[in-house]
């Protein structure tokens, strides 16, 4: 008990030197632990080589009106569809108030190139690849894409119309390098 008396001796405000040392030591250890957790959490993020695959060039010259191709960007499928005028007209006819994720077809295509509908082929529900890009596949009730996993129907502008998916198929960032080459990413 003698040492207990010693540590409080000469301290008027009732805070012992040992309390300060306890708090300082635990705080320091806490900061150290947090500093170690950071790299352990960060190693889970995509590595540099995964991020390096982030642009893809596509030649679209061979895609006839009414056809679509499936390609890939960042290991995810991409649909490139050459819309026919009837499909564009059908998409324009739909009032925005009917849409779950309201977007016009003009917002989903590039000006002057509105026949080129480029979207990720990843259903916004749980990530399956919807059907409809290849010849003869089920294109759903709205003539666009149909996801067989949980029954989401997309229209001719790849907008969600029916089923559990919350969003339209995502339009990735892309640019036309020329009339026939597109860079995604």
């Amino acid at each position, binding site marked *: 008990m003698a040492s207990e008396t010693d540590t409080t001796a000469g301290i008027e405000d009732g805070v012992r030197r040992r309390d300060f040392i306890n708090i300082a030591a635990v705080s320091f250890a806490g900061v150290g632990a947090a500093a170690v957790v950071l790299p352990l959490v960060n190693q889970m993020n995509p590595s540099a080589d995964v991020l390096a695959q982030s642009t893809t060039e596509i030649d679209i010259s061979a895609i006839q009106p009414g056809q679509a191709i499936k390609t890939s960007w960042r290991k995810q499928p991409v649909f490139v569809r050459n819309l026919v005028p009837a499909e564009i007209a059908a998409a324009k006819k739909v009032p925005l108030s009917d849409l779950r994720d309201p977007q016009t077809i003009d917002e989903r295509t590039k000006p002057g190139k509105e026949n080129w509908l480029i979207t990720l082929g*990843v259903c916004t529900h*749980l990530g399956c*690849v919807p059907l409809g890009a290849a010849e003869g596949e089920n294109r759903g009730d709205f003539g666009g894409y149909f996801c067989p996993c949980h*029954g989401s129907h997309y229209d001719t502008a790849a907008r969600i119309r029916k089923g559990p998916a919350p969003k339209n198929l995502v339009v990735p960032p892309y640019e036309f390098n020329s009339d026939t080459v597109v860079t995604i990413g």
Partner: protein
Amino acid sequence: MSFPWAKNYEPQQPLMKWLDEKLPLPRLVYNAIGAGYPVPRNLNYFWNFGVLAGVALVIQIVTGIVLAMHYAANAGVAFNSVEHIMRDVNAGWFIRYAHMNGASMFFIVVYLHIFRGLYYGSYKAPREMVWLLGVVIFLLMMATAFMGYVLPWGQMSFWGAQVITGFFSAIPAVGDPIRVWLLGGFAPDNAALNRFFSLHYLLPFVIAGVIILHIWALHIPGSSNPTGIEVKDEQDTVPFHPYYTAKDGFGVGVFLLLFVTLTFFSPNLLGHADNYIAANPLSTPAHIVPEWYFWPFYAILRAFTFNFLWIDAKLWGVLAMFAAIALLFFLPWLDSSPVKSSNYRPLNRIFFWVLVADVFILGWCGKSPAEQPYVLLSQLGAAYYFAHFLIILPIISRIERPLPMPNSITEAVLAKHADAPSAATA
């Protein structure tokens, strides 16, 4: 811990006496699963399933460690390395089929163990902690099984990983970054496969750790029993060894017979043919189905096809699916009836079997494609599942009039045996 009349461990040989002083491991075993642990004398075969689950875990760990010696966790070669195990490795086909079907056997045993607990009220005081730890084990098992199913890198593996990690993208605002963080990429690939392999190897040992806590928590009040009446004195119990080591041993024999029958005669009965096609990120199989033990939860996930309030259908589905399991954590407090065993609860007994039927219907819907009538059926089934725990159970536990109960376990046992001869003569 345990009852005052529990036999005390008294080593006879000098070596065992010496060991008991230095490291009383034999004492621990004696008091846990030996003659030193008194157990109610009236346990029926439904009390075998805890031990059977432990046996199933050991089988999974042993076969899994062996498989890891031949498997390569790289997206380029994983599928081929599994085929290498199946075709080239000596007895590799047997070890892989045992591991594959062992997972199914583990879940069959655990589902029976859970429904045993539901019927006999094993989750009630004083065993709430045993139940809570059990739900934790169940969650860990599901995570382990899911990650294990990804490893062969077939079509179902890949698309299962895509769909299940897609759950996290339902979280508002931070969902997509979380999913990318979990996968280490924008779609399942090498990074995801490697981390799943690492965690699939780790989690069974975490499960083993939680099982130790589960048994520890169980051994404080002691095992429950079919009457739900607590042990009152020594004549209500028998020592675990030899009585229940023998009874469990018989159960293990039956379990292994079913297990080898499945493994040798129809090893792919519970699998999906699509998983023998290598993963293709550009093509989803026409009909994605999880393993059978996830079907009821998968049906609940898919039951939400419409936005409701301010939450969209996708988030509702994910929330409902997790809530279906999280609900079990609250079960000890949702059921307020002081009577444990449904043998004495006429109303609860009926609704228990309705719940069993509901889970089977949900399972059937989860297996079927996302079209009518399965969508409507899974909506009704999911609604009933939640209603059972949140409405029906709290109400019946208040209004139900239990049947007259015997005073003790011994009285119940003796009454049963007194009936038997008169029934025989009649």
